[in-house]
């Protein structure tokens, strides 16, 4: 659907990442007016896909995004017709969905997709809807504006009236997310206290209200689904004993390594590309990996988890992907859990040590090689060798 690309004679093109917000309508008007003033010749409205093709819920989400984009182009057309200006015919409006082939975890990922799209279409400007916060990118994480400031794109926020903070909270207060967080907090509180003791009930309602008001925007990035949640909880109950067993097994192995000075440790940082959704699924997986001794999730970026492993045994377990399959089982069901291991998919990489297959990544998303410790980068690159015992774990550097 991206058919409005190309640089116009007067202004450049602008890309606007959107989602359904209270200020979206005003943002569209602002953009059309700016374009009519000759600032832009083409406006690209993009939505980041929060699903991957083949996810069970992909179809529904795609349909709702299509409706959003259709609404936006209708608005833009109406605004263009309202502006009495001969130049308006030159303004091209494009709407498109980007990122459908990957899960996007954080601000870095969104910016990378946005920069790639801008490069493809010769775009130099970004205008942000002031209320825009991509799904899965909660207020606790690094802001999109900050991540964008490290790119070459010219960024500004659309000067449209924001609803006040109070209105926003009241809007959330009626939401199903608020109800879910409130109910869960109250149930937990009363389980610890006494549900039949009035004092506990009153303090519980007060505490749950505070929790829900402050955290319902942060904790959930989508409305909980009544259809799916009970099944997920049931499957989660199956997962817990399996996870406990994994933890027990790894604990014994790691305890031996720690207590016996003859057994050397061989810590490395690794990369594994995981096929789970952003938000709760990837958090569950990353937490499970960290709970298992010997593996520690350091970073989620570009659809990859960066995992530090203490011993090669733990790393092999990670590359076999049993926790990834379990997470997919919990969130998407038994069918979704049948997939090749990350090792078979070539979705793994080792950054350090004698088996290293890839360069050590910088701390920042955009390359970042200038910031990292030079000695470590060279040791990771030089230590590459072809030991036969690494043959099955070998992947080529990207």
């Amino acid at each position, binding site marked *: 659907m991206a058919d409005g690309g190309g640089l116009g004679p007067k202004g450049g093109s602008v890309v606007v990442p959107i989602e359904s917000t209270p200020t979206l309508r005003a943002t569209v008007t602002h953009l059309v007016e700016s374009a009519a003033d000759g600032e832009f010749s083409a406006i690209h409205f993009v939505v980041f896909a929060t699903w991957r093709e083949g996810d069970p819920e992909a179809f529904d989400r795609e349909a709702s995004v299509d409706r959003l984009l259709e609404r936006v182009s209708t608005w833009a057309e109406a605004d263009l017709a309202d502006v009495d200006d001969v130049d308006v015919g030159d303004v091209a409006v494009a709407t498109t969905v980007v990122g459908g082939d990957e899960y996007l975890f954080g601000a870095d990922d969104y910016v990378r997709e946005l920069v790639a799209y801008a490069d493809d279409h010769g775009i130099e400007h970004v205008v942000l809807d002031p209320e825009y916060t991509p799904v899965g990118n909660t207020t606790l994480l690094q802001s999109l504006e900050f991540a964008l400031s490290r790119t070459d794109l010219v960024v500004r926020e659309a000067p449209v009236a924001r609803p006040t903070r109070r209105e926003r909270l009241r809007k959330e207060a009626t939401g199903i997310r608020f109800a879910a967080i409130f109910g869960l907090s109250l149930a937990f509180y009363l389980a610890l206290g006494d549900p039949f003791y009035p004092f506990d009930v009153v303090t519980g309602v007060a505490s749950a209200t505070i929790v829900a008001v402050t955290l319902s925007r942060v904790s959930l990035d989508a409305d909980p689904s009544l259809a799916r949640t009970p099944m997920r909880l049931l499957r989660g109950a199956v997962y817990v004993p399996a996870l406990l067993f994994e933890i027990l097994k790894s604990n014994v192995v790691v305890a031996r390594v720690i207590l016996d000075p003859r057994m050397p440790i061989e810590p490395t940082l690794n990369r594994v590309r995981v096929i789970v959704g952003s938000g709760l699924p990837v958090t569950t997986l990353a937490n499970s990996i960290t709970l298992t001794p010997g593996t520690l999730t*350091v970073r989620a970026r570009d659809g990859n988890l960066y995992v530090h492993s203490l011993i090669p045994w733990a790393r092999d377990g990670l590359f076999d992907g049993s926790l990834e399959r379990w997470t997919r089982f919990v969130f998407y069901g038994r069918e979704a859990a049948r997939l090749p291991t990350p090792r078979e998919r070539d979705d793994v990489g080792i950054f350090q*040590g004698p088996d290293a297959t890839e360069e050590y990544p910088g701390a920042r998303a955009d390359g970042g090689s200038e910031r990292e410790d030079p000695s*470590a980068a060279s040791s990771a690159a030089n230590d590459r060798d072809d030991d036969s015992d690494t043959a099955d774990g070998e992947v080529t550097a990207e």
Partner: protein
Amino acid sequence: MIDAIAPVRLALIVVFGLCGLFFTFVSMTGVLRLPDVYSRAHTASQADTLGAGFTLAAVALAAGWDGAGFKTVLLLFFIFVTNPTAAHAIARAAFEEGIVPWTEGDERR
């Protein structure tokens, strides 16, 4: 109270308590012995998972399957959610600061 507990149950409580103690000891050894912030974060999580896990199992057995035992299970659940979150926060902060994980041959830090 103690003499009301059957010998098997008492033995289980002692075994679980000792297991908890053992894994907490391993975790402490690891924090002292391992070379850098990342590997120490690994072993710190052991104290919380099996160390606290076995200890709380002992507590739940001693308290019985009424209110207190149930609360112990909730407490364990809470630890299992918060512990990896904290470990990840530490590791991620170290990574963002540009600290490269220790590999064989490096100095201890």
